[in-house]
């Protein structure tokens, strides 16, 4: 099931291509929201609950705002937040993971135990505990989720660095007398890039779903700002009127997550195949 499109020198599978298109469309919506959206997200443009018409393709919401425009602006908030969180948790996790693998000794033991502990608790519950005191300002949300997610990145990058570090070509470099940074840059990172990139996709999905869940529960993004999760919350009563309104943002969340997982699956499959050839 491959298509004649290549990325990173590998042929895309059909799901991977679909996933890639989904991601591109979403990113385009997020970046170009003011251009794409016909109305501002806060503008009241007609009667509440109005049905779709050519100018308002998805109809109007409970306050008479254009649903489509709000969805487009919501992409900006949801994707932007998730991306910032992922970058932060990745920076933390990879740095600590590589450091633990390289330094070994007590630093590794200490970090690993701490991570074990954090991973032995349900993330959502721990986030509740922290947010109950710190409130739900955006920077608090971002840092909390990033810190709670970093242990997973730590585990993977530590294992990667350890596994690759045990291979004989790394031993060769050490025997040659190469410095630590040279070994990490030239021998470990190029071989860790593919699984790390796939992990970035997975972590993005996690952060994206997590912030959406918090917003849906009312302890995430607060009005008037709106991401897809809080839109589901705002429109949830409309479901009893048999309206589609809450399903649009919820569906958008699901579609983007599926798109990302299609691409991640493809990257992991390529990596596994590369490993198979090597062994």
């Amino acid at each position, binding site marked *: 099931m491959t298509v004649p499109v290549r990325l990173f020198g590998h042929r895309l599978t059909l799901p991977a291509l679909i996933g890639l298109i989904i991601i591109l469309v979403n990113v385009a919506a997020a970046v170009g929201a003011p251009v794409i959206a016909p109305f501002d997200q806060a503008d009241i443009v007609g009667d509440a609950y109005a049905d779709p018409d050519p100018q308002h393709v998805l109809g109007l919401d409970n306050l008479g705002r254009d649903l489509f425009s709000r969805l487009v602006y919501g992409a900006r908030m949801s994707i932007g937040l998730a991306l910032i969180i992922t970058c932060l948790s990745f920076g933390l996790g990879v740095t600590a993971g590589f450091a633990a693998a390289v330094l070994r000794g007590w630093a590794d033991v200490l970090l690993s135990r701490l991570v074990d502990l954090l991973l*032995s608790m349900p993330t959502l519950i721990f986030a509740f505990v922290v947010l109950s005191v*710190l409130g739900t300002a955006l920077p608090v949300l971002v840092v909390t989720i990033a810190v709670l997610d970093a242990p997973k990145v730590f585990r993977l990058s530590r294992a990667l660095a350890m596994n690759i570090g045990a291979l004989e070509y790394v031993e060769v470099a050490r025997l040659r007398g190469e410095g630590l940074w040279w070994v990490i840059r030239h021998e470990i990172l190029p071989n860790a890039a593919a699984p790390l990139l796939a992990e970035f996709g997975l972590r993005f999905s996690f952060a994206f779903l997590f912030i959406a869940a918090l917003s849906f529960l009312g302890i995430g993004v607060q009005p008037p700002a709106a991401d897809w999760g809080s839109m589901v919350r705002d429109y949830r009563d409309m*479901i009893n009127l048999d309206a589609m309104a809450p399903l649009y943002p919820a569906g958008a969340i699901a579609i983007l997550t599926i798109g990302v997982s299609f691409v991640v699956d493809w990257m992991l499959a390529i990596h596994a195949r590369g490993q198979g050839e090597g062994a």
Partner: protein
Amino acid sequence: MLRLIGQRLGLGLLTLVAASVLIFAGTEVLPGDLASAILQNTATPESLAELRQELGLNRPAAVRYFDWASHAVVGEFGRSLASHREVVVEIAPRLRNTLFLASYAAIVAVPLAVGLGLMAAIWQGGVYDRAVNFATLLTISVPEYLVGYILIKYFSVRLGWFPSLANVTPDTPLLSRIWLTFLPMLTLVLVVIAHMMRMTRASVLQIMSSPYIEMAFLKGLPKWRVVIRHAFPNAVAPIISVVALDLAYLIVGVVVVEVVFVYPGLGQLMVDAVSKHDVPVVQACGLIFAAAFILLNMAADVLAILSNPRLRHPR
């Protein structure tokens, strides 16, 4: 082997203690304490100091932790800041409801997922397997609220088969309880089943590709005997740990599902408490959820040790 199990139980206990420290620390040591959380914008230096005195916040954190933890062990979590009722009284009926919903979903999901996963493994590469594979890939990352609202839209609003609100009371009889919570249960099942099934399939397939399974076929054994006698005993341990991990996930999923269906469970109580900064309730709920999560993980490991022949029959 007994030593291994003992070690695992000890580790579980230790983790539980550490988790309680984290939960306590999460609410106490971070910038902004309980008093400012309660008073929010209305805080004046005087009122803050007064409230701190009242809540005993002037004592060192370690002392307060031991005070809190020693009471928590016997089920005393203090009084709710919002309702001023005993936290235990608030929690007890809700915990029962949550446990009911989670067990209801688990009883349906586990046999279903393991059965479907085994079937996918047996007919690996067939139409059924590929269809299931694609379906699970689609549903594996779909959020609970989307599933929940789709189910409400079609089964409740359009068809009217089930209620959209699962408002049970302590005196609701079992049968109507099962009916009232059918949609929440189904939502949880749908969300958790994809992962459980994929992992069951993967662990069975991994075992089925091992040399001793090929050997069993070369001994002229029929497929059913190979699967039941040779593959299954070895697949039990990985399947158990997958199921336990997914059940741990289910506990978290319960929170969102309870909000979707306005079900009076522990999750909803916790979410309300978070928005009201009702710290004692949040701590109590957090501790209960964390304990359930840790217990399930521990049970998975212990069962895996018990079903490993290398550990059961040491050299």
